[in-house]
């Protein structure tokens, strides 16, 4: 068992309980998704005010909703195409709101350099999702690159709880650039190979 696998299994214990409660109460997964984004807005607000520990705690709650919605949908047999679409769209709002919170904070502090770093990190975070979504309209799967949404979220929490948000932003920015590049290269190769096979 790997270290990250062990952490994942430990985190799953309380989450299974929460999923069970949501299933018992028959809460619709789309509502869970929506509640998650509202709580994320509160986290963004706290980030904007520079209250990182509070923001971290709110992010934990928001991302519980974010994480369990899909699992509850499966348990309730409420999986739908719209649910997947809704989840993806709402996730982008959650992502962007956290970055906006930081951009607001750094602009208040007069730190144009970190406004730019946060803005670029936001751009590449969005492009990470877009490149995969667009690629998967052309090829079967495009799951390459390290910096996906769960990694970003965990890094945000680590940055908030340990007050090392600048380092976290650098990591998100650099690895998101590589992730977008990976996806472009991978899609190019896959399409080229398909064309060559057909020729």
């Amino acid at each position, binding site marked *: 068992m*790997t*270290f*990250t*696998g062990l952490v*994942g299994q430990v985190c799953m214990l309380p989450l299974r309980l929460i999923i069970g409660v949501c299933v018992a109460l028959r809460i619709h997964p789309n509502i869970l998704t929506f509640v998650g984004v509202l709580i994320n807005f509160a986290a963004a607000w706290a980030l904007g005010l*520079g209250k*990182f520990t509070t923001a971290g705690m709110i992010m934990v709650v928001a991302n519980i909703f974010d994480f369990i919605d899909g699992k509850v949908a499966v348990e309730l047999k409420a999986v739908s195409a719209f649910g997947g679409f809704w989840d993806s769209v709402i996730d982008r709002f959650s992502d962007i709101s956290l970055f906006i919170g930081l951009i607001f*904070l*750094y602009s208040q*502090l007069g*730190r144009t*350099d*970190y406004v730019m770093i946060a803005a670029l990190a936001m751009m590449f975070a969005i492009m990470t999702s877009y490149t995969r979504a667009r690629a998967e309209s052309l090829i079967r799967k495009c799951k*390459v*690159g*390290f910096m996906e949404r*769960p990694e970003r979220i965990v*890094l945000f929490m*680590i*940055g908030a709880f*340990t*007050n*090392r*948000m*600048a*380092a*976290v932003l*650098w*990591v998100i920015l650099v*690895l998101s650039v*590589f*992730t977008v*590049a*990976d996806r472009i*290269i991978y899609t190019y190769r896959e399409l080229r190979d398909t064309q060559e096979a057909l020729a």
Partner: protein
Amino acid sequence: MKGAAMLPVRVLWNAFFWTYERATWQYDLMVIAILAFVWLTPPDWLGDPMASGPGPVAWVLAMLTAD
């Protein structure tokens, strides 16, 4: 010999052109590298506008050395 010389290049390429799943030893290594960067880089080097205090690594060291 050539293979050994190319090893760092291959490691770097595999790190940047990432195709590994979560919960693999490669993933663990990447996580350790990221956490080391986040927690060990002095905030002054990055010009962190918000960082204060010695940081998590120093907290752990202080706890270990406390009487």
